[in-house]
């Protein structure tokens, strides 16, 4: 995406009584960052040894030479290549669908007047309370009925819209989209679809990008329903990792290699778009 990422400055209020962080503060931050990152680093360390080395004390603290081999075994034994492809497809579709549908609905709730708007918005927010467990049994029955076991649409369709996304886009558009702009377009004779294409979408683009990334991460990590709906024959990454962890391959080093492979793409996303994801979470939080 050609968005000039590095050009977005972090706004930092210089005024006021906010104290400067002392050395102790930095020490605590370093500690927490280490706590956040080290388990992942150690995943790579463990993935670079063989299984017998992992069954020894002290545990390995530095990289060994077996990484490529373990990655290869994980790749072939746990169907990880297929799993990565599947997950990319699923998360991509979910992100696209979520962004499209939530932007439309968010725009309608933010700027259009229609009967029942407030009631419908309340319903949207209310749906956030419905836990996924409630739909598992009937969805499973439906999937079995339709013969959709192991098909990707099984895990795409139920998560294609999100109440959070609608709410997120609404909050963004309420402020970012001047009502006069829509009125001006209307006076020029634009119908609603043209307004969406030429006024709403350009304004909403930053929020759409953030929502897309958040949905992608969430869909990539989705666990409960995929584990129930899919099998090891056509898994997502999480399903494949579950298979690894539950003893299809007893080799711990290989399990770690799989965990590493399943996490790396998202770490890449985080490294590239981290500040935008941070901004999105924070923006969603204040208003939510």
């Amino acid at each position: 995406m050609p968005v000039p990422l590095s050009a977005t400055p972090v706004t930092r209020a210089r005024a006021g009584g906010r104290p400067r962080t002392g050395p102790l503060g930095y020490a605590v931050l370093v500690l927490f960052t280490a706590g956040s990152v080290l388990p992942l680093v150690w995943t790579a360390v463990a993935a670079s040894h063989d299984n017998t080395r992992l069954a020894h004390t002290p545990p390995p603290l530095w990289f060994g030479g077996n990484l490529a081999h373990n990655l290869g075994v994980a790749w072939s034994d746990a169907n990880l290549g297929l799993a990565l492809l599947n997950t990319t497809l699923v998360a991509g579709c979910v992100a696209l669908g979520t962004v499209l549908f939530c932007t439309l609905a968010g725009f309608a709730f933010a700027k259009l007047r229609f009967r029942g708007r407030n009631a419908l918005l309340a319903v949207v927010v209310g749906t956030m309370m419905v836990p996924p467990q409630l739909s598992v049994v009937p969805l499973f029955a439906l999937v079995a009925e339709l013969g959709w076991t192991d098909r990707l649409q099984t895990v795409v369709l139920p998560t294609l819209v999100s109440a959070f996304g609608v709410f997120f886009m609404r909050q963004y558009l309420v402020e970012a989209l001047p009502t006069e702009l829509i009125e001006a377009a209307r006076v020029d004779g634009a119908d609603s679809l043209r307004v969406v294409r030429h006024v709403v979408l350009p304004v909403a683009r930053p929020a759409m990008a953030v929502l897309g990334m958040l949905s992608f991460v969430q869909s990539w990590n989705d666990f409960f329903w995929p584990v129930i709906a899919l099998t090891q024959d056509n898994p997502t990454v999480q399903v494949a990792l579950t298979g690894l962890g539950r003893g299809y391959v007893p080799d711990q080093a290989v399990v770690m290699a799989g965990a590493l492979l399943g996490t790396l793409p998202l770490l890449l996303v985080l490294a590239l778009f981290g500040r935008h994801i941070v901004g999105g979470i924070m923006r969603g939080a204040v208003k939510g």
Partner: protein
Amino acid sequence: MTSAPPTTVEDPGAEPAPGPPRVPPAADRDRRAAWRTRRHRWDVRWSPYAFVAPFFLFFSAFGLFPLLWTGWASLHRLELTDMSRMEWTGARNYLRLLHDEFFWNALGNTFTIGVLSTVPQLLTALCLAHLLHQRLRAATFWRVALLTPYATSVAAATLVFVLLYGRDYGLINWALGLAGIDPVDWQNGTWSSRIAVSSIVVWRWTGYNALIYLAAMQAIPDELYESAALDGASRIRQFRHVTVPSLRPTILFTVVVSTIGATQLFGEPLLFGGAAGQKGGASHQFQTLGLYLYEQGWFGFHLGRASAVAWAMFLILLLVAAVGGLLARRLRADR
């Protein structure tokens, strides 16, 4: 969308016509204008519904309908082995639940692990946010680094922690050994396993919650701190008497969200339990409601009972939400 009549296609580029515009016959013009008005009115009236329709369609199909169907199924005997047959049993599934010690065990575990994970997670997040709110070098770096666990999936994170918590060769027991502490059986101990499962949740969500608190802190006007400082309040007092009270709604929000998350806890205990993960450990010591549902439905084949568990979870959540709402109202009244 309806298509426009051929002569009224908008052409914004040709707007400032040089000569006098060609005027169509009056009757024709009126008819076209009337049609345009009608189309416009129709568009303004119905487009909003078209825009929100996808959400409600998908939600009805994959949220609402299943919700109701699950309720219906919970009143039946329904087996995974023969899903075409439903046999009405009334409230029997629920009564069975109430008499199943493993249901109460799962409920207790869900509550215990929920408290063990939510409380430290939110307290730590609050302190972290406080640090991040100060004037800080490389502010973005710290924020992104704290999100690494958020980007790690339940599966990957849990598999790593299983190894870290290993009894004989795990890194954590080895480190404890260096400090002179005997090895802990993290997987089979009652409390140690619950703590281990909770720690995975804490690890994954603390940074995320810290960002939410940070966002709320940035909305607090600096003048509040300045006047507190003028009154001679120390930093710790400022934190307690300015920051925390201003954050109350956000704290409540995170408490409710974390509670919902804790009620649904599934992946961490499942994978922490290894090959028989659905049992939540050899003596069900960390089996949560989510796992209990999974075990009833997909290992015991009793989908009717699993549905009853799902509805029980839903009712518990509604209760939590109601309590949260009441608390929120109380807090608002206090101000």
